[in-house]
């Protein structure tokens, strides 16, 4: 039981490049979330999903897109990377909506 996995662990992007952050969970959770954490700050919700095929915007969705074709996977797409997207990204899942969330180890992204 791997829990929530994220790849890659680290990535450096040039301004204007695009990339996909991968997230997978093997706990059969319906609810999945993407957060970003800037230095000294809390977690800001980017997008969330309540099940396969259903996604919605969180607090800071601009510059990102998501899809949820299966229960297990919830990739986050960055289009036209900007320095403001330099952050640590965490994916999480939960059995109950808004309940105890299980987090992945994070992806540290730098945009230069």
């Amino acid at each position, binding site marked *: 039981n791997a829990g929530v996995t994220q790849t890659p662990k680290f990535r450096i992007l040039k301004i204007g490049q695009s990339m996909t952050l991968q997230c997978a969970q093997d706990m059969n959770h319906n609810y999945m979330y993407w957060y970003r954490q800037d230095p000294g700050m*809390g977690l800001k919700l980017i997008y969330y999903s309540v099940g396969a095929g259903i996604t919605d915007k969180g607090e800071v969705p601009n510059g990102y897109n998501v899809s949820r074709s299966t229960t297990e996977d919830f990739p986050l797409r960055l289009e036209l990377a900007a320095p403001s997207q330099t952050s640590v990204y965490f994916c999480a899942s939960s059995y109950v909506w808004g309940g105890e969330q299980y987090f992945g180890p994070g992806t540290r992204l730098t945009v230069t």
Partner: protein
Amino acid sequence: DQQVKQNSPSLSVQEGRISILNCDYTNSMFDYFLWYKKYPAEGPTFLISISSIKDKNEDGRFTVFLNKSAKHLSLHIVPSQPGDSAVYFCAARGDLNTNAGKSTFGDGTTLTVKP
């Protein structure tokens, strides 16, 4: 407008003593509160939670207290151990009619437990 605030960025305590981490919130529609612990270079891990219908929840060395009238919750760790040194995040969840039940996180408090 930050709805969940952890006003102390850091806290240092001696091993064996009590650690008290505080969290204030502004939205009276929050119905569920959680504490997460985060070590460097790792994702947060769930620690303890409390429903708005309770005022206390205890799990081993960790106790969370909720004061709804003051919109305040606190996490007590007794006794504190060096392994408790981490960043602690408070989170609050709205009911499904409030902000679609999304969780809002505070900015965290860094706890250092000195041997």
